[in-house]
């Protein structure tokens, strides 16, 4: 299941704080983050990558969607 997070209208650093909290809580899965500022996009991509999540994004006019995903790691399977 894809979880959606809407960070539109949130000033720095709230998008990063909010999304990071959600990512760390599950440590695997897929999130779709909707945002509207270049700063939030840059920061979210950097933050998610730093903690080992895969990030792809799509620009939609003045907004963007980030697809942040992480599969269960092999170690955890064992």
């Amino acid at each position, binding site marked *: 299941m894809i979880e959606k997070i809407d960070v539109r*209208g949130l000033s*720095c*650093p709230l998008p990063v*704080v909010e999304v990071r909290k959600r990512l760390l809580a599950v440590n695997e899965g897929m999130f779709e983050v909707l945002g509207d500022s270049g700063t939030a996009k840059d920061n979210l*991509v950097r933050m998610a990558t730093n903690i080992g999540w895969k*990030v792809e*994004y799509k620009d939609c006019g003045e907004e963007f969607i980030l697809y942040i995903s992480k599969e269960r790691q092999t170690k955890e399977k064992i």
Partner: protein
Amino acid sequence: MWEKFLKSRKQIIFTGVFIGVFAALLQRWGNPPNMGICVACMLRDISGALGLHRVGVVQYLRPEIIGFVLGSLISALAYKEFKPRGGSAPIIRFILGFWAMVGALVFLGCPWRTLLRLAGGDANAFFGLAGLVVGIWIGVFFLKAGYNLGRYQRSSSFIGWIMPVIMVGILLLLIFKPHLPSGVVFFSIQGPGSQHAPIFLALLIAMVIGFLAQRTRFCTVAAVRDIIIIKDTYLFTGVMSLLLAALISNLILGQFNFGFQDQPIAHNNQLWNFGGMVLAGLAFTLAGGCPGRQLFLSGEGDADATIFVIGMIIGAGFAHNFDLTSSPNGPGRWGPAAVIIGLIICMIIGFSMSDQFRKKREA
């Protein structure tokens, strides 16, 4: 791939180095000592030039401030990031700007000048830096507790142009220097306000800084905050580049003088060097960024950042009129009391705007 779009460290390092080198050079070309750039001091000088305070030695319309906003505006327009927006608790942002300025003027410098004072050998700035870090750390405590000033709203382009238009107005006042019967516009004839680099040189350098900082999101407060909260050193790299570049430039230019005593535009009451910057650091963190960042945001259409900057300008007026600001002799008569009051107010804002404490109260 998205990786192509990631800002590389090269850009943030270049931005930090550019600011550090040109801050030292601006001092060489006329700006006050260890004050090649100081966002708080320069806004305070503008406040004085407009007559919001009457301390004759700190009144000048600093073109650096104008350049920061206009450089950011140009960058935002060029890269389609000019997004007029506002409405995220503007009155709170005004109050935070006000108290951030009071704290900065008790220390005698914003986070930028804290670094530049260190780079000039002013050891008193270590206490200011320690205070800044503690203030940011307290702010992070609230952020982790769900501190939130609410979402901004996209708005008409008019709202985004307010700060750039104000800056053009200030530039016109600086160029034409009108003298009204009230005495404004005031320009210091002695003291730090009388020391300044050539107008258009300072304006041009500041515009380049504004452009670079808008692109890289350069922020001295977020540099520390991001390390504490998300273990990210990207912005910190830029801040360290600034410090090192300014230090090396000062050594080359003969502007480095290490010690606690007789440092320019500084005092050595360490308790209030520390305390002033705890207040400033907390207020900046609760507002989302350092004063430079607030100027760059106001240039890209953020009306909330504009309100914060106006809070700083008004705060400077109050701080001087009510004897809150420090001088080389130490804190003003009511400076320490003001820092304590400011800290209490910022803590109340932190607690009242954090989800965790809000839920507890509602339960």
